[in-house]
């Protein structure tokens, strides 16, 4: 477990102070979130938002879509990151609303209208100005988790996040595993 410290430290740095609150959730609430996600996954209709209003969802989705744009390969939109965020806010991360909603309001104010209605270039400019805020740190953290966590948490729809990386979560493998060990196995 030696790299735990390294990776955790990296994570703490990367997540920003607000993101840390995501870690400290109650296990019972986590279970509730998982159950909730499973139920939602079983619904034929597109999941409705449990926690966010349509405008709030549109705004946060727009932010997530600039963090992971849909630029030829699937991004936050296709992964359903906003559904991960909504479910998290509805269950184990309800406290994060206090960071996300005022932050979104601030973005709208800076935009002089709905952030979601701005051009991508304008959105990027607005986000650069708030890069160091707890709001952006939390959104970045939530978007990354929504891209790369198991789909049971509500995001990573169709495993598009893992496909982006070329990661397989549930395989058993046999050597050779990669190019360089294959080369050695061939006597190269």
């Amino acid at each position, binding site marked *: 477990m030696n790299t735990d410290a*390294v990776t955790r430290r990296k994570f703490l740095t990367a997540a920003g102070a607000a993101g840390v609150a995501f870690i400290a959730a109650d296990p019972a609430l986590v279970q509730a979130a998982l159950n909730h996600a499973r139920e939602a996954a079983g619904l034929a209709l597109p999941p409705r938002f449990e926690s966010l209003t349509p405008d709030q969802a549109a705004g946060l989705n727009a932010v997530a879509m600039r963090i992971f744009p849909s630029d030829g390969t699937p991004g936050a939109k296709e992964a359903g990151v906003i559904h991960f965020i909504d479910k998290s806010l509805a269950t184990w991360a309800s406290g994060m609303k206090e960071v996300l909603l005022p932050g979104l309001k601030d973005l709208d104010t800076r935009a002089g209208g709905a952030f979601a209605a701005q051009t991508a270039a304008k959105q990027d400019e607005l986000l650069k100005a708030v890069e160091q805020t707890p709001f952006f740190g939390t959104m970045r953290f939530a978007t990354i988790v929504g891209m790369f966590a198991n789909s049971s948490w509500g995001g990573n729809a169709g495993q598009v996040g893992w496909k982006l990386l070329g990661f397989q979560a549930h395989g058993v493998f046999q050597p050779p595993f990669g190019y360089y060990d294959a080369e050695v196995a061939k006597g190269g």
Partner: protein
Amino acid sequence: MQARPMRKYPLSTEVDFVIVGSGAAGGVMAKELSTRGHSVVVLEAGPRLLPSQFKHDEFDYWFQGGIGNPHPVTWRQTEAEEAQAGQGNIFRAMLVGGSSVHFTANFWRLHPIDFRERSMFGAIPGADLVDWPITYEELEPYYTKVDWEVGVSGAPGPFDPPRSRPFPMPPLPVKSSGVLFERGARKLGMHPHPAPMAILSKPHNGRNACQHCGYCMAFGCEYGAKSSSLASVIPVAEATGRCEVRPDSYVSRVVSNPQGRVTGVSYFDKQKREQFQPAKAVVLCANGAETPKLLLMSELANSSGYVGKHLMFNGNTGVSGVFEHPLNEYKSVQVTRIVHDFYDSDPKRGFYGGGGMDGRFQNFPILWGLGGLPQDGPQWGSEYKRLLGEYFNRTMMVAGHTTSLPVAGNSVTLDPKVKDSFGLPALRITYKDHADDIKIMQFMVDRSKDILDAAGAQKTWGNPVGVSGGTAHLLGTCRMGNDPQTSVINIDHRTHDVPNLFICDGSSMVTSGRGQPTMTIVALAFRAGERISALAKAGAI
């Protein structure tokens, strides 16, 4: 694979031994004592999970507590500060099998020098370095027991200490990280060799071999191939019919009588009711943080004032490198090759310390997204997303694992304010690395970068070395020694103060080794179990 508990003792039964903790040390202790005919109850704070209940779920296991210990930890660097939650953390699993369930399974033996560096180098300013009261030679037979009974795969390296028997299994198949690490290290004149891992490369003792799923670090092995106490020795203990492993039992106090002997332990059961388990003797194997915490709460075995002191973490470093072709490092075990060329402390470097390096998988996807890329590059947006995808399977990490000096001010104490959900004091960590610990970490960062460059990395990056803010290694807090004034336990693992109270876990270690302590903790438990049983049979407890 999974033996259910064969024996249940009524609470009214005074057993020969109650063992607190079922991890790397506690599991072996249970096996050694029960197979020698003693009645044993193991109290484990966490639940009992079947291997099939382990999940491949990074968000749960790395971020939401998963199989971890949920109790609060407060943190500060020096005694002058007020400790705060969230400033740092210690990572330990809380379930039957303890942290041996979720560890990465690097399994290095100590070297003879680890036991006698004080004699070799003399006093080191700002530290409290002492020799162990035992030697490598005394521990060697128990390391060999671990190899065979617990299950270790590997092959001898050029700097390895003598071993009395070969590894029971060959090394796990080399990964691309191992090939590149070896290539770079050899170019630089180093001597890389296969990593000893507590993961089965072949079926052994009725257990499965590794299936190379990749979920080792922070995860439980659903195949039973990782040599946790849960997979290896606990089933043997339970099969004796003399050992009960009691999960969901959180010990709050070791109870003593006016004669200065312990009579058993109080604990909270699953319903948070307080229970008392009487025993003729108590063995604490709760880890290097929980064991001193329990002693401090019980006000026992601390006439030296050394309980909780000299906490050592091991330094750790990471440098990443991206290569031309896919490595697919998420497959199989985390580490396959290591270097021990810098194991010994070398006065020519100008500071105390040594360590090892390994080539390994860097990060699972969420951690990769959060902090995997070079910090000087984009952290969101199209270019960030493109690099995440392009680098993920072409990146590896060289990790460094180094000495921590024993410093009296680095400690585990009871937080005076923060309580856990049972009303018990939170663990308070006070920790600031000795200046030499920082220097050896920087040395390893530089060597790691050299190796990656020599292996042909297109780009390398890493975090700057800083004061430790988290660890899974909890060592030295009830150190072993011959002098009751400067140590907590003797060479039999008996506390100097209480004749029927024993301790064996990371807290027993006198020096930190070079970063992979679990093998030594398990070997100490084999040795301690044998000696404690002999004392019991001689009527000497």
